[in-house]
């Protein structure tokens, strides 16, 4: 590694050019996020200086992180799943009903959640992978079905009064050293809900899967070029199926985390969550064309969305519409960046 300056810079430029789409977009996202958060701290002051406000974003976005992870998987496969929001609602409603009306126990409720997620994953996966039906339509049906079932299970939104559950809901992982004093000068530790811990674990796990296992790589392969993947001896159908299955499962988990966060069942829960998840994945550098994407990016994508929301809320732009507009603007920005990246690739090729 002993080269003179020019050589180094040359090799660096070389590196940047050979930087794969995935990593390039990832870098962009992360940088963007930090700039945004620092900006928030500088301009919004106090609120954002408190770590807790950061953790609050995490707490409220934990479920979305998991959902977005699932979407990233299917999107890397060049597929899509817009049913996750519905599944989330269905899961929380079913669990709520089970816990509240039938006073069931937590483990079972968790199993219910996973079961529902898995069921959706398997069914949609089968239709998409083995009957190759348009994933959009299939999961659209999935979304409709989940939303509908939610109201069929129980129309009225209600909160769960189940000791065990509420204990779990209140459980907080204290983060020493990051706390802050509240306005009467009492020092309170910063905390995250267990949902966050689970979500982060999932992120790490999936990161490893995508990077260091054959399954993960075959996700990328299938997304990159279905036909080639087949010729390269990858079982495309099964890979797609697994991706959808995992997405469904994650939707189940995400649903439970969401349920844990809001502690209530309602048909209007997680409305539009699927779109938020897709948006996060895109901001995180996943391309719907498939073959390009990264879980860590997705994590940052979700956080970016959350941060934007907080900035808007505390920037005195109190009208609700600003959130929608800013998010869209952000999404637009990232999409344009992506298409520019694609162009760059075309150039370097020609």
């Amino acid at each position: 590694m002993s080269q003179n300056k020019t050589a180094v810079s040359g090799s660096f430029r070389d590196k940047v050019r050979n930087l794969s789409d995935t990593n390039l977009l990832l870098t962009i996202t992360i940088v963007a996020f930090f700039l945004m958060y620092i900006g928030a701290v500088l301009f919004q002051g106090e609120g954002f200086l408190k770590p807790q406000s950061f953790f609050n974003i995490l707490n409220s976005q934990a479920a979305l992180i998991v959902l977005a992870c699932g979407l990233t998987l299917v999107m890397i496969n060049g597929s899509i799943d817009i049913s996750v929001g519905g599944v989330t609602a269905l899961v929380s409603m079913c669990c709520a009903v089970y816990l509240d009306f039938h006073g069931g126990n937590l483990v079972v409720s968790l199993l219910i959640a996973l079961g529902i997620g898995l069921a959706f994953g398997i069914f949609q996966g089968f239709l998409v992978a083995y009957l190759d039906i348009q994933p959009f339509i299939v999961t659209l049906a999935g979304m409709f079905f989940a939303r509908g079932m939610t109201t069929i299970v129980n129309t009225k939104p209600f909160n769960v009064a189940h000791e065990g559950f509420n204990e779990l809901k209140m459980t907080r992982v204290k983060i020493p050293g990051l706390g802050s004093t509240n306005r009467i000068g009492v020092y309170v530790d910063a905390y995250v809900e267990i949902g966050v811990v689970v979500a982060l674990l999932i992120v790490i796990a999936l990161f490893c899967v995508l990077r260091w296992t054959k399954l993960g790589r075959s996700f990328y392969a299938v997304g990159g070029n279905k036909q080639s993947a087949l010729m390269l001896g990858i079982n495309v159908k099964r890979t797609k199926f697994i991706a959808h299955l995992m997405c469904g499962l994650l939707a189940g988990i995400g649903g439970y985390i969401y349920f844990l966060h809001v502690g209530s069942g309602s048909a209007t829960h997680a409305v539009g969550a699927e779109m938020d998840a897709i948006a996060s994945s895109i901001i995180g550098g996943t391309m719907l064309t498939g073959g390009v994407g990264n879980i860590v990016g997705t994590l940052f994508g979700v956080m970016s969305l959350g941060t934007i929301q907080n900035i808007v809320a505390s920037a005195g732009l109190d009208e609700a519409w600003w959130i929608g507009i800013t998010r869209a603007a952000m999404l637009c920005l990232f999409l344009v960046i992506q298409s520019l990246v694609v162009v760059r690739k075309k150039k370097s090729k020609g």
Partner: protein
Amino acid sequence: MIKRYAGLIIMILLISAGAGLMFFGDEAREGSENISDQEALYEDMPQDGKDYIVVGFSQIGAESDWRNASTESFRSVFTTENGYYLLYEDAQQKQENQLKAVRNFILQEVDYIVLDPIVETGWDTVLQEAKDANIPVILVDRQLEADSDLYTCWVGSDFKEEGRLAGKWLEDYLKRQERAKEKIRIVTLQGTPRSSAQLGRTEGFQEVLSSHKNWKMLDCQSGEFTQAKGQEVMEGFLQKYKDIDVVISENDNMTFGAVEAIETAGKTCGPKGDIIIISFDAVRTALQYMQEGRIHADFECNPMLGPFVSNIIRRLEAGEEVEKVEYVKEQYFDSSMNLSRILGERKY
């Protein structure tokens, strides 16, 4: 090259993020010690040394005229001229958003939190946090189920009373029409299930209903306080039941929808029509409908909560005690009144 180390790089970034926060955290602690007064916190707050009362208001959304009117009443009262600084957050119909909003208020160290809860339950934790931070919480409009010492007081309408009034009104209206003995078929467009307005109004009307053998409640369905939904549900009713005498619509927006549905179905409503319509909220449009003779009676649910709350805060500032429950004063209107005059005076 880069690809291989990407994972590593990312981990480093994550750690650095944590570290950064650690740093901010420490700074924050010092910060909050030496920043005594509120001025520094909100950069767009006038820096004229006056000690403003910072109020965080978490509103449900902007789904109806009534809601907007109430939001407006807060905006108009909690101004810097009046010595307030208002942080307003619209929850867009989601409890999670409200929880988030309230938590932010706590972090931003406001003096008072005003909350219009979307649903009745699931507030204990956050209210406790507010209590710990010694921030008084004033609930408005809708009620919630929580240990009453977690919040300072509740300000709003007595929905049950409204329901009861409606029932009574129907009772003597029918008397006047010599239909007191007839069989009366009633349908109800309910509000968002479990919302206190829905519960109160239904319950209140139920009381009167139960005292009349000849009144029959055909069906209750939720129109979710929205016009589109109201119309949908009403269409359903009309296709299901050939003969409907009375429609109780638990807010005006649903009523508009219902009227629409009734009229497109070729039936008529209002004093001259064949269906009696009783509505709640009494927003301007509703009164205009009444003028046009499309609605019989409308029971006000006063949205001008801002002034009441302001008044309460003043009293609290002055160290006075306040009631746990403070009803706003309300009235009702029906087609017999001089509506044009009323419309003239009313602000919403």
